[in-house]
């Protein structure tokens, strides 16, 4: 059974989103996602300044096994990417809720409410 922190919101495509006190939103992939991917060996990060709509492909996580798109769980402008993942992509396996991938300035915070809460995500992944 995977770890699903109660304070986070989740997309059905397995990204987590956390609303920070400054109004930005931090994004990563869930424990369930990293487990399914296996050993992550490369992360293709989005460019800072890029604007995504909710559900847009916003990067790629490659494990030894396969490449998987990461989707923007809500719309917004990328204001930071986690450069540490370039040298240490395995951080996504080791600490999926510590190793964030990018931060967004949301275009519409209400989109967060459309995401799943922890219980909803747990049900979605059948746990």
């Amino acid at each position, binding site marked *: 059974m995977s770890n699903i922190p109660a304070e986070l919101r989740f997309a059905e495509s397995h990204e987590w989103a956390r609303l920070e006190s400054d109004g930005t939103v931090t994004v990563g992939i869930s424990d369930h996602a990293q487990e399914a991917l296996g050993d992550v*060996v*490369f992360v293709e990060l989005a460019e800072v300044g890029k604007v995504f709509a909710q559900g847009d492909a916003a990067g790629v996580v490659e494990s*030894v*096994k396969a490449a998987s798109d990461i989707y923007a769980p809500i719309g917004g402008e990328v204001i930071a990417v986690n450069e540490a993942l*370039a040298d240490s992509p395995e951080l996504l396996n080791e600490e999926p809720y510590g190793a964030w991938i990018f931060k967004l300035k949301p275009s519409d915070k209400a989109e967060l409410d459309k995401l799943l809460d922890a219980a909803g995500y747990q049900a979605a992944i059948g746990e």
Partner: protein
Amino acid sequence: MGQRTLLYDLHLALGAKTVDFGGWDMPLHYGSQVEEHHQVRSDCGVFDVSHMTVIDINGRDATAWLQNLLANDVARLDSVGKALYSPLLNEEGGVIDDLIAYRTEAGYRLVTNAATRAKVLAWLKAQQSGFSVDFEVRPDLAILAIQGPQARDKVAALLSASRAALIRALRPFEGIADGDWFIARTGYTGEDGLEIILPGHEAVTFYNDLVGAGIAPSGLGARDTLRLEAGMNLYGQDIDETHTPLTSNLGWSIAWEPAEREFIGRAGLLAEIEQGVKEKLVGLVLEERGVLRAHQVVRVAGIGEGEITSGSFSPTLSKSIALARLPMATGDRAEVEIRGKWYPVRVVKPTFVRHGKILI
């Protein structure tokens, strides 16, 4: 649900994540395939490969039959225990399967791939007429591959004195029976190691003994990255019926002499040589970050295009490597398209790692 080996429940108990491979539910990894890969290169690991097909061959014409069937020549196996690798070709020279043939007391033992089982057996049957030969498939047997620099020592320590002595005496590419066990110094990882074929009812106990001795359970994920680093082809990916050994880096496995040996596919191969062999299977190394994958397009400036047949991340090199089929005139540089962008790659001989050492 796919077919399962006798060790399936034990794999699950050991935490295996399973994957479909050629109709079989097989362990992909037991936690981290990269970790399992490193274990095999530095120490040793055990793979359940019981999904592969064991075929025992006997009869007066066994040698003549295999000399007709195989591109390599079993006459080279001049004593019991010797083994060789060979492609099994169709009339055009396309590869139906690749296999290892061991010479045994009774005749020969072939180990062929899992996914090709039905068509290989149909082919063998179709080629049987005119030869006094019998073959028997052995689903009653399990196959464990224990691979890595420590594999022979660690396995020998677990077995009877006679089997331990056999393991110490085995030379590379030899396989000898001891009672109802068959112990071979062969493998698919580029490391020293053993492949042990044993009665299925003994498999669970032996596998537990191996794990108890600290030998890491290892899955098909690590097996794939290990064989890719070793430059070994995977049937169905790097070789198939639409390509010959000549365009698959397997020219060495065709025994042209004696010239009068008319093996199936010989004429097709000679015709290809006559017309000029147009492609070759090479290794690629991506110097930038990213991962090469099967079916990505490769272009060679001024020469043409080709395709990656197998690609992954190499845990030993910490970069991505691949096998690719490219135009014969390809030099030492090419470019690969990954998600719409072109990345430069180095073209190398497709043996990246052997016996723990990086060769490129």
